[in-house]
């Protein structure tokens, strides 16, 4: 019996798709069931429905993996989970195409390490005030969401939104400056 604990997601997917390995599938289940149920609860707002939807998804998962070529498993599974929830909510009216996902963001240089280095500073200065404030508090002062809320006076949703949007803007700005060079 192979121990899949140390295998990457892509190795597990391959084992499921090619060898129909139950152990590999069990490891995927162990790694992601809890996360998927969290996502489903966020979308459906009902624990029972979230559990049912998650169970159905994991039941179909080996089949889906075999049918589709899964490159970025984590992002793919997230799309599957959201689709399953949306199907519940919209009753199959609209579905996100499975090939319509992009891999999740890579870490932004300097920002993730909390270092205010040169390429980052002009981009940071160009951000709207709220986004800049939240980015600085979170990434450079290393505060948690709740602490940023306390420091800035914004509500949690706003903080998350400013951080997401600020991060996106910074990424674009850095990419632009790199291409200019």
């Amino acid at each position: 019996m192979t121990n899949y604990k140390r295998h990457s997601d892509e190795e597990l997917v391959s084992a499921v798709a090619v060898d129909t390995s139950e152990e590999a599938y069990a490891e995927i289940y162990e790694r992601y069931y809890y996360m998927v149920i969290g996502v489903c609860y966020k979308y459906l707002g009902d624990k029972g429905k979230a559990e049912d939807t998650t169970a159905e998804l994991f039941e179909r998962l080996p089949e889906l993996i075999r049918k589709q070529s899964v490159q970025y498993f984590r992002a793919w599974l997230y799309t599957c989970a959201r689709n399953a929830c949306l199907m519940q909510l919209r009753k199959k009216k609209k579905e996100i195409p499975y090939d319509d996902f992009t891999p999740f963001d890579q870490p932004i240089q300097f920002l993730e390490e909390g270092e205010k280095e040169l390429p980052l500073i002009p981009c940071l200065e160009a951000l709207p005030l709220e986004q800049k404030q939240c980015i600085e508090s979170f990434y450079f002062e290393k505060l948690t969401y709740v602490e940023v809320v306390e420091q800035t006076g914004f509500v949690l949703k706003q903080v998350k939104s400013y951080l997401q949007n600020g991060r996106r803007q910074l990424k674009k700005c850095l990419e632009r400056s790199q291409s200019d060079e």
Partner: protein
Amino acid sequence: MNEKDLIKKYTEGSLSKKERHDLEKSALRDPFLMDALEGHEAMHAEIGGSNIGKYILAFMGVFGVVVGIGIMWWAVEFKEMNKQSYETNAESISLYSEEQREEVEHLEGTVLLSEEAEIINEMDVDVPSQEGESLNPAVGNDLVEDTLPVSNEVLEIANSSETSLTEVLRDEQPLTTTNVLNLNPYLSQTINEQKLEKIKAERDEDLSKKELKRILSHCDQVIQICEWIKQGKTTEADKAIWMYKKSSAVQQPYFIWMMALKELKMSKNDSAYNRLTLLSKEQSSLGLQARKLGLEVKAIK
């Protein structure tokens, strides 16, 4: 620590500040993790909230049950009160016929109730005797003989060096038919009897602690109730009588006696007379007192 544990600890708030920050940072570039985190946070809050709701519901349920039991208890109590009232009435009816029969017997030369009353009145005149001897009168009547055991106990205690009967009975007033509605003599007598019972019980080394406690409780309750009746505090007395009836120290004759006294104080002579008639069957000093008082009430009626 795997993601599952991190998310669990994050929602429980048990991560360190750095772990928390790192997880949040990861979530910003991983929408899967962000959604999972938000979903679990919402679930945690929801379940926590629903638990509070459950506790409130449970509390409401318990409260409802308690109120329900209370209502049922009151219903049972009222039913019992009514039942007792009916029983008293029924018994008094049978006693009336007994009395009528006695009156017929009187015509045939047997002992008269009215004669008993006279004898009792004679005895009452002697009651204030400072030595308490008249409490054990040589009236030569069967009814009075019933009082002997208690009277002897009274004398025994009274003659002891530690307690003066004179002192105990100093409130005693002669009872006449004219002051029956002023019940102080009867009430004083009851109070003093109870005081003596208390003293006797406290001295009795053979009594178990439990029994002693029961007697003392009984005496205290009767003393208090009689004091309230004396003072005309009938509402307090009424409550205390029913509390007394439910206590472990209850003695049914005393319950009937106090009810009768309270009713007389409230000028409910008919009802009181019925109770006294019932109580007069008791073979004790209380039974004799009830008979005496009953005859006086009857005379007034």
